[in-house]
């Protein structure tokens, strides 16, 4: 029960709370960079491809970048499809 329209009890998990949490994470990223996905990503991707190509042959679309923004940290997941070992060793 709350008489004044708000309650001092600890918040129970509600969908509104989920909404608030999601917004806080998203807006923190957007305010920092203007966008949740930093603008340097396309460049980063082509740089990564260039570095890898010094060692092995990779296709242009053999590099896949995924990002997951979290409350405290964000993670960048980079998957690189390498050619089969015989070609790589050659």
């Amino acid at each position, binding site marked *: 029960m709350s008489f004044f329209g708000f309650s001092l009890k600890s918040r129970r998990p509600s969908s509104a709370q989920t909404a608030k949490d999601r917004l806080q994470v998203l807006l923190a990223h957007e305010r920092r960079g*203007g966008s949740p996905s930093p603008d340097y990503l396309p460049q980063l991707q082509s740089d990564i491809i260039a570095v890898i190509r010094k060692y092995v042959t990779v296709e242009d679309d053999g590099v896949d970048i995924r990002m997951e*923004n979290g409350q405290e940290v964000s993670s960048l997941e980079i998957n690189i499809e390498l050619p089969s070992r015989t070609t790589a060793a050659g």
Partner: protein
Amino acid sequence: MTTQLTEEPPKGKVIVITSGKGGVGKTTSAAAISAGLAKRGHKTVVIDFDVGLRNLDMTMGCERRVVFDFINVIQGDARLKQALIRDKRIDTLSILPTSQTRDKDALTKEGVEKVLDELKTEFDYIICDSPAGIERGAQMAMYFADEAVVVTNPEVSSVRDSDRVLGLLSSQTRRAETEGADPIKAQVLLTRHDSARIDTGEMMTVEDVLEILAVPLLGIVPESKAVLRASNVGTPVILDGPSNAAAAYEDAVARLIGEEVEMRVLAERRPNLFHRLLGRTA
């Protein structure tokens, strides 16, 4: 409800979700319809055309996973495969988010066409979530459409804007400009339908709206708390447990793919007559 289709699904049918007026439920509907199609096993992608104000990612709950977007793909900074986000709940569903930062001019007709053509090779349905208004973003979202879902609230400005949009669909689109092409198949989806307010005469009835717009009705989605809840948690309402809104969208999806489903008006649990009388006299 989950019967498998006997007919072959179409390859790459483009459906725009549009309205003219803002805030009528386009994004809610785009998310629900695409999830509904995907749930039935159709490979479906939903594209956010609301450049600069993207919200589809929030509604779909994938906002933390956006790396590249539609505009990056159009401008050649990323490949389509990298920008597509695979839904974690349904593996036949993908999302193509849009950019928060760029302006609407980033959408070029050629760029949009190229992306759609590539998507057509992989997806059965391509759902385009249009921005409000009738400016560039909305025009790009509808230009290449095969079908249109015109989201309308039973309210004067919404119906008026829907009429404008219907006019544009039959004149400013590729199908309209191509001689011999069938016109875009447009249907009205009436959302935020509030039986109580219609009974009191505050809101137009379904019949009123259809009489004015003169296009077939795809469905009637009630005003429902389930929609707000679903958007809070980032789940298309159709996937967020049973609700009247979810059932209404299920029906609409069935009709969209050609099934015959009887039209029904689902309502949020209505206060009984006694309550309503009390409310009125109070």
